[in-house]
């Protein structure tokens, strides 16, 4: 993971009281219109739902900061431009240190994302690791066994907080971390055609991505990928599924902006190893692609991983359970 925290405040806000104090000053001065932060999801859990607070007196009570604040609030960074257009300056956003790279990407591409150093102010939280909230739910039945996300184990801030030795021990003891690293480096065991066909087209990976900021004209949206699927079929005779085409287009498109925050993998409801696909695409392109012919490379890739229908059997588009 890439870290470039140098250009931002080195100060880390450890508590909501500190956040409220700083944001209160900005709000009262009219420099921001609201704070984009984490709030309490429900009385039943400690999970955090996004919360937009625009009144000083509510800051201390409506915001929360805990180990369950897993998603990246920079997905809401475009609200900064909205507030600025209303003459309210912009927004302050609670961010984790690992998310500052996304802020760099958004400001670098500010002419398209609308994010500038003026309209989005990061409130950088002191983070000691975020737990895998997925393990709170019924599907795994391990409600008490909390552990930090795999990305935290590679984070310098987490290592600084817990000590290099302890983190190395955790890395060695966690099978899921090792499996993840192995999958990134070598995907030999994955049948990509079958894996990508599981995709539900829910767009959670795209919509949670903190580096995705377009509001229209997405090359990975429903209509665009349907056109590509159709063109592959009609022109090239490649019977790739819509699911496969969507994943290739999206993963390739986000490649240069990816900060490897693994949010897309966290939210995928069918468990597609998206980071491994990204790594594989990069590797294969380095090996066989030519910089002038990205479309040719992706077409060949799609043809290579498209499942071949058995003779007389179901076509790939009928492969869904009947």
């Amino acid at each position, binding site marked *: 993971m890439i870290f470039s925290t140098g250009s931002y405040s080195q100060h880390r806000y450890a508590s909501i009281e500190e956040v409220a104090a700083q944001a209160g000053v900005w709000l009262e001065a009219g420099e921001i219109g609201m704070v984009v932060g984490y709030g309490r999801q429900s009385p039943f859990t400690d999970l955090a739902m996004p919360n937009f607070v625009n009144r000083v007196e509510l800051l201390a009570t409506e915001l929360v900061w805990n180990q369950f604040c897993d998603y990246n609030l920079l997905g809401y960074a475009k609200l900064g431009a909205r507030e600025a257009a209303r003459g309210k300056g912009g927004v302050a956003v609670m961010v984790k240190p690992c998310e500052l790279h996304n802020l760099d990407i958004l400001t670098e591409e500010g002419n398209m994302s609308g994010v500038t150093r003026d309209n989005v102010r990061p409130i950088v939280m002191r983070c000691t690791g975020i737990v895998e909230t997925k393990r709170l739910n*019924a*599907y795994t039945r391990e409600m008490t066994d909390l552990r930090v996300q795999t990305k935290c184990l590679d984070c310098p801030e987490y290592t600084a907080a817990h000590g290099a030795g302890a983190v190395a021990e955790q890395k060695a003891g966690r099978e899921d971390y090792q499996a993840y690293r192995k999958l990134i480096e070598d995907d030999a065991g994955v049948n990509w055609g079958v894996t990508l066909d599981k995709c539900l087209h829910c767009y959670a990976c795209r919509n949670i991505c903190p580096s995705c900021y377009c509001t229209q004209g997405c090359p990975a949206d429903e209509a665009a990928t349907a056109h590509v699927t159709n063109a592959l079929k009609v022109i090239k005779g490649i019977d790739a599924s*819509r699911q496969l085409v969507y994943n290739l287009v999206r993963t390739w498109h986000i490649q240069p902006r990816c900060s490897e925050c693994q949010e897309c993998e966290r939210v995928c409801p069918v468990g597609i190893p998206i980071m491994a696909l990204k790594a594989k695409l990069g590797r294969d392109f380095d090996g066989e692609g030519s910089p002038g012919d990205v479309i040719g490379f992706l077409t060949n890739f799609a043809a290579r991983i498209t499942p071949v229908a058995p003779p007389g059997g179901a076509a790939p588009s009928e492969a869904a359970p009947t």
Partner: protein
Amino acid sequence: MKLVGTIPAGRVWDVVDHLSRQGVRVVAPTLVDGLCQFAPVTGAHQVVKDYLLPQNTFKEFLFPKQERVFTWLRRDDGSYVVTEPPRDFPETVILGGRPCDAAAIGVSLKSVFSASASDRWEHADPLFLERFERTTVVCISCDRPDLSCFCTTMGLGPDDPTGSDVLITASGPDGDLVVEVFSPKGERFVERIRPLLITGQSESLLREQRLAAGQEARGRFVRVFDIGQVKAFLDNPENFDDELFQRLGTKCVSCGVCTFECPTCHCFDFKDLGDTTGGERIKVWDSCQFPAFTVHATGHQPRPTQWERYRNRFLCKFKIYEDVFETLGCTGCGRCVRDCPVHVDITSYAMQSHARQVTLLQLKA
């Protein structure tokens, strides 16, 4: 309802081997790439025995995420042949479904795909109904909920038989599984597994133990809240533009996880793939949370902002289902609560709507 006997504790998954040998497709909770999912299995060893709720619903075995409706092909003389795929759906047993899914799919989802007795709804979907005819839903009562389950709040429960053909409940001191049958499809299932059944025990004792087990599981629910006034709040047209919807709905990131994992979400779309020489029309899941949902050919978008789209989902679950289909729109499985990328919580919506209506009533009084 008929209590037909018991299966000894720990032997319920032998049903999988038993049915597979008879050529029946069995769908049960199994590990698919590390996730507990409903998928076809052929042996008891493939089943996840210690599961609470699979991540997907078994909706996809009645209403697939993508299926071919017909294909077209141009002949040399310029005429077209249109072919519908054969509807030879296999006989299927869903084993280990949960009562929330059974009520949602066997009653609510079915009401959407069948024409109603009243004149409110005319659509009948043969693809769904023919699959439904060949599917037997065998549920196993939950022994406990997790933090996101809220079926008791929706008027169901961990041992509620609504929508199940057969309900199996672990009860009594040995944890034996009491088998109850609720439909002719269930009768046929019981005939198939007859050798595994133990009969001849005292029926009243079994019934007593089974009710006690259900009560015990009910007592473990954490997410219990009051939704008594939610429908009244939504029924009042003055509340349609209430600031509550805007405040909560803006946070939604507009993905389709909640709708695709929801057992009662039923929206679909048709897509044409191919060209004039040949191609296929496919039916695919669609989600009301997508910006392109129901956009008119003129470009008019009836719900241009995300909070309006989220309001639509909320209305669909807590008002429209009741008004149009006279069934529950939400059965409290909690999947949308568990898997929302940003932890947006529909129960939080419901609680706040209820509270708001109570406040409005108090102001009026």
